[in-house]
């Protein structure tokens, strides 16, 4: 699955987009991300957006979903 990265998450991964192994839901994606990029665990929060909407850990991920890693936001 293709996953978009922003802000500090992009810096940690060193790329604006990654491809993950198949993951069933948001919780599994987070675990995969934490294993690949342990520095993500140090962040104040880590949200996942699915199709441009914040998703909870139980949400299933389907082929074709637009998935994004949202580190702590700091607009304004």
């Amino acid at each position, binding site marked *: 699955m293709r996953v*978009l990265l*922003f*802000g*500090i998450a*992009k*810096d940690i991964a060193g790329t604006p987009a990654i491809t993950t192994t198949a993951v069933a839901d948001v919780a599994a994606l987070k675990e995969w991300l934490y294993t690949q990029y342990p520095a993500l665990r*140090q*962040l*104040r929060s880590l949200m996942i*957006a699915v199709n*441009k*909407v*914040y998703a909870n850990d139980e949400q299933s991920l389907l082929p074709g979903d637009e998935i*994004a890693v*949202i*580190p*702590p*936001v*700091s*607009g*304004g």
Partner: protein
Amino acid sequence: MNVLVKIAADINVQEALNFVESPDCGGVVLFVGNVRNETQGRKVVKLFFECYEPMAIAEMEKIAQHTIATMGISRIAILHITGEKFPGETVVVIAAAAPHRGVAFEACEYAIDTLKQTVPIWKKEFFEDGAIWVAAHP
């Protein structure tokens, strides 16, 4: 339409005011956020803003629609920049218009507070001796 949301390299206070002003609105409240030249005593050289634009627009739209639907204002504009900005330059503008001023103040404050919590925009602060993504770490 009574809502304007926009992300661009440059934004303009007058554009927000022009959008919300209307003969039925006696109160217009404007919030302007500019780059500050220091953070906790460290001189800030510049800020860099990155956004997940389609989602940021959707979240800004949600904020705007909430103020219209539940807070009693008539029109609102929320503008945010992306890219590089220097001290004194404007990064966010919110204008809210209502028949009377009270709800316009409340809506403006709600909009900027919520934007800072939910809209996927990230700010990197550049000092003379390094840079950090703001609020990334506890």
